[in-house]
């Protein structure tokens, strides 16, 4: 493995930057994601930072079932992200469509459109669950890097 690749991997493990995109959620998971980033839960202690543009981020955090309107937008955002990239689906709707499964304007979860690395269920996923999911994802990334 080249030095540059090692550096990229080290930095994305120590400080993964995330982008939050609401793909048609009811806001509940979104406020829990923000709650996870604010002082009580403080996701930033794992180096996680919320960023504004897909071109700067390692992890795309999606909440909500994919509506037909957001489906091609989320693909465009995913394509704009630099490699290596991961997607986290937060909430029951993002994992499977949840309560909205079967609605005429809703697809079945994020993985029907883009590949997903981690699923965090819950309606809404609590900040504790979000932290647990993100930490497990980071750990699996670390193990994958060690084995390669």
């Amino acid at each position: 493995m080249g030095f540059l690749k090692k550096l990229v991997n080290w930095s994305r493990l120590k400080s993964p930057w995330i982008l939050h995109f609401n793909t048609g959620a009811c806001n509940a998971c979104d406020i829990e994601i923000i709650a996870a980033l604010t002082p009580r839960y403080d996701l930033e202690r794992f180096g996680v930072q919320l960023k504004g543009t897909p071109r700067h981020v390692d992890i795309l955090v999606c909440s909500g079932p994919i509506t037909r309107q957001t489906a091609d937008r989320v693909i465009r955002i995913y394509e704009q992200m630099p490699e290596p990239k991961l997607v986290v689906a937060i909430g029951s709707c993002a994992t499977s469509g949840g309560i909205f499964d079967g609605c005429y304007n809703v697809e079945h979860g994020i993985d029907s459109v883009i590949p997903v690395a981690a699923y965090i269920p819950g309606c809404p996923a609590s900040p504790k669950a979000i932290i647990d999911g993100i930490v497990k994802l980071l750990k699996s990334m670390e193990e994958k890097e060690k084995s390669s």
Partner: protein
Amino acid sequence: MHDNMEIPVGPQHPALKEPASFRLSLSGEKIMQASVRLGYNHRGIEKACEERTYIQDLYLIERICGICSHAHSTAFAQAVEEIAGVNLPKRAAYIRTLVGELERIHSHLLWLGVAGHEIGFDTLLMYTWADREIVMDILANVTGNRVNYGINSLGGVRRDISPEQVRQIAKAMDALEERTKYYIELASVETTLINRLSGVGVMSKKDVLRLGTVGPTARASGVARDVRKDDPYAAYAEINFNVVTDNHNDIYGRTIVRLGELMESFNIIRQVIKNLPDGPIAVKVARKIPSGEAVSRYEAPRGEDLHYVKANGTESPERVKVRAPTLANIQSVAFMLEDRYLADMPIVVAAIDPCFSCTDRSIAIKDAEGKGKKKKIVDWESLRLHGIEWYSKQGIDFTALNKRFKR
């Protein structure tokens, strides 16, 4: 002279927490024209409601919006209870009021943080969201979930409140009141906050009435319109509280109104837990609701939430219609943005506390000119008169209200 420049903002944009798209026509730094495009969050809830039973709908309706979920589920439950002719037990009405006000506290604290974030005052975001966790703990304790409480059922509520919980709520209210007093002081002395918010997003009383704005956005322009006072539901008829208004007409006024409403909410919650009546928390409602229709209003943290339910005697409704407060307010955003600077755009949008997942309903007009139907466009004035007539038939008199809003 240079041509206007078109800038699209959204659906993914750092200033927007939800997908919505704004198209701004700029001349230099000034916004000449703004148009809003909605519909990214449209999931088809109203249609889905027709395919499910009333009990299932209650949970689906709750997930229209996660921030004011109690507002939606209560409004829907009230409409169904009205059709079924159910008398809500008093204790249930008080618990609904309690959860509604706790929700208002969490929503207004959330707004204050988001507003701070939009003007680059991230310290305020971290402060308010840390304080918001106090009320989130109480909500989790009382209802069992932090968001999407699921406390309503048709004919009452699902969980009772124990004396131990009452003590915890009283303690939390004291802690939150102290913090809110600090924010009120901050809003009155902090020059950066005052200078950044004053004179931005100005909307006069006349414009508020013309554009049909609701909630704190309207109350910040001196329109004392509040469903809790005008058409009391749940336990509000038995509670003393003031409708907070302000005459700044701008975003600073909206901040003051929301902070004032926080203080009123503490006051309401103290009265609720003090006068909590004994008795059952729910009555049984039949699975099949008799045919009929009802309109229910609820003062959500963002303004008046309106639900219409039409029942046809089966287990599921024939039609459910939701008019969320943001739909009433979104027109005013385009108005407030015009002739303002581009840098004001995030805070002007955030100032109405937009909730696009509430707003994204859709209407399809079929066969307007089809067989046997005559196309008829109802103008605003005749629609207004029809509304007054319809309500007076129901025994509600609006003349008292009209006197208050004399233009």
